[in-house]
């Protein structure tokens, strides 16, 4: 019987069939960060249990650490015990741990792939909903809450029900100025924020094949904003070339053996999916969110939606509330709306590829008066590579702040906030009410669109500059 990639990834990790569609799944890789990881390790210790397989667990602080230049683990005082706790617990349990300032520190979803911790075909979890990012390498990766996290630490397994399968094909060639972020925001705008609920999404099609790993990770990263906790791309030669030589990746004969296995990780040609969607990539324009859900995404040249045109009463109310929070008027163009802040960073768009794209546009331009613009590299590795290429200089000369790696303004868990009422264009993943700080107004966009906003001082179509 033909199998989907989900079938193959799932079946390969079943330790026991628990009945009624439930499986005891093996966890090959566990990433821990300072918020949920520290709490999980403490909960485990409180129960008198130990980490079953510390060699499969990798920890670093990203959420509650300052991104200010010269920061230490104590710069943001409320985060200090979390950072210190993670370090102490990791040492005690014998986990891999990456300290601030060391290569390996960074947003867990950036550091995992870049160190070769994330590999095709692994099952990978983290107490973080954007764990789906790792699917860009063909991993079965998903976020969990505190209880499941503790369960995985204690048993190296999780009790899971297999989700349904949804295949999204992005077909065709991206136009000038279009980024992977635009593809996925476009899709969420079209299908809605709950379209993927209960599903694992396989991204396929010619446009996905043409993308590098960073772009695939950007797309997989937003699976959760489509409602799916799992999203992935079948690994291919692009993936194997990316993985080769990374610190924790297999070497020599082991690598060859692994690649032979990884080549089997694709949906069979006649596999049947529970649902299929196709997107003609040529139709995608730069896409920006206007409201407070990622499904509030529209083309840059579209008008701000009118609640009176909403498809049902609930959405009419939700659109009204969103417009009110965002301080926007229906019917007017979104382009031209003045912005106060620009954030380039987060597990969605803080990789070296993102920063290169942003720097190419920032070079020779300058951040508009009154705009605060930050670049927060995703990891220490990204930061060092960017500095070696001179990207930090490009950003600084253009008036951007160049900061230390972490989650920073994406989630505002480290005291860094967009002020109340201020409008931000952000390369992150959530435009929720209060996400970037109480009262902050977030517009999600690609790195290029973020630079366009920074240098013009308004939401701007990058194709016009």
């Amino acid at each position, binding site marked *: 019987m033909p199998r989907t990639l989900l079938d193959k990834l799932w079946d390969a990790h079943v*330790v026991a069939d628990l*009945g*009624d*569609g439930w499986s*005891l799944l093996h966890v*090959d890789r566990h990433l821990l960060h300072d*918020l*949920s990881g520290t709490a999980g390790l403490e909960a485990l210790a409180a*129960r008198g*249990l130990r980490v079953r397989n510390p*060699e*499969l667990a990798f920890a670093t602080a990203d*959420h*509650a650490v300052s991104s200010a230049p010269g920061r230490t683990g104590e710069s943001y005082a*409320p*985060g200090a015990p979390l950072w210190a706790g993670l370090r102490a617990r990791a040492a005690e349990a014998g986990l*891999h741990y990456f300290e601030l300032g060391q290569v390996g520190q960074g947003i867990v979803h950036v550091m995992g792939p870049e160190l070769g911790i994330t*590999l095709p*075909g*692994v099952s990978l979890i983290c107490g973080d*909903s954007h764990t789906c990012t790792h699917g860009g390498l063909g991993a079965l990766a998903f*976020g*969990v*809450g*505190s*209880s*499941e996290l503790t*369960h995985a630490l*204690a*048993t*190296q*397994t999780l*009790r899971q029900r297999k*989700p349904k399968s949804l295949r999204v094909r992005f077909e065709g060639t991206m136009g000038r100025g279009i980024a992977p972020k635009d593809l996925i925001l476009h899709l969420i705008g079209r299908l809605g*924020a*709950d379209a993927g*609920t209960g599903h694992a999404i396989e991204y396929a099609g010619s446009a996905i094949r043409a993308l590098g790993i960073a772009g695939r990770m950007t797309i997989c990263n937003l699976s*959760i904003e489509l*409602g*799916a*906790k799992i999203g992935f791309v079948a690994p291919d030669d692009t993936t194997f070339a990316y993985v080769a030589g990374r610190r924790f*990746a*297999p070497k020599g004969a*082991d690598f060859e*053996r*692994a690649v032979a*296995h990884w080549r089997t990780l694709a949906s069979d040609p006649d596999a049947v999916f529970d649902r299929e969607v196709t997107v003609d990539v040529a139709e995608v324009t730069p896409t920006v969110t206007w409201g407070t*859900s990622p499904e509030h995404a529209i083309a840059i040249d579209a008008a701000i939606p009118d609640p009176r045109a909403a498809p049902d009463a609930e*959405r009419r*109310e*939700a659109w009204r509330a969103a417009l009110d929070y965002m301080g926007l008027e229906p019917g007017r163009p979104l382009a031209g709306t003045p912005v106060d802040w620009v954030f380039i960073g987060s597990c969605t768009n803080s990789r070296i590829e993102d920063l290169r794209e942003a720097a190419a546009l920032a070079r020779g331009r300058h951040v508009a008066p009154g705009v605060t613009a930050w670049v927060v590299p995703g990891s220490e590795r990204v930061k060092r590579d960017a500095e070696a290429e001179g990207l930090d200089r490009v950003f600084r000369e253009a008036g951007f702040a160049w900061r230390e790696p972490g989650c920073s303004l994406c*989630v*505002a*868990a480290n005291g860094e906030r967009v002020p109340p009422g201020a409008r931000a264009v952000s390369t992150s993943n*959530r435009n*929720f*009410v*209060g*996400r970037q700080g*109480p009262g902050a107004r977030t517009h999600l966009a690609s790195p290029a669109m973020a630079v366009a906003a920074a240098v013009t001082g308004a939401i701007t179509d990058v194709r016009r500059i």
Partner: protein
Amino acid sequence: MQPFTAVTGPAAPFLEPNVNTDVVIRIERLTGVPRDDLGRYAFEALRRNPEGGQGGDPAFVLDTPRFRGAPILIAGRNFGCGSSREGAVWALMGLGLRAVVAESFGDIFFNNCFQNGLLPVVLPKEAIDRLAAEATSGAPLTVDLVAREVRAPSGAVVPFAIDPQRRQALLEGLDEIGATLTREAEIAQWQARDRAARPWIWATA
């Protein structure tokens, strides 16, 4: 985990779609507030006076006299989408909630509910709208996990489906970690086989 059999009481209608876990509980509250106090900060982004209770926000349903401390929430579709923070469940339970009825839930939040004894009930939109209309008066509803049904003040009975293993675990207040630890031999055996089949997974020195 707190076992769940049935709960009876007012059901607060809150039908906004896509209510995310960031809105349920701000991330900064998870670093500074003990788990048992999170209820005070639930939905603070939507409440003018987050610490609620006294005074409260008349515009926010859970702060109205009728629904303050209600054990049931009737929510909009895709409730609990977004972040994996289990603190969202703790905050809801801190408000006194034991069951949330909605058309759909965020996947991770849905899992987290079952880990803590908060019952998420999935019902079709028509049923949600009907129950919400009846609940508006503040008359008590019953969510009964044993009988797998919601009983409305009018006497209407709405059956719901629930995964049998999840139902059993909730009824018993099952400790999943304890249950899985009894399978240690199977896990060890699987890992031994995997070390031979995929040695690269295990070479992490």
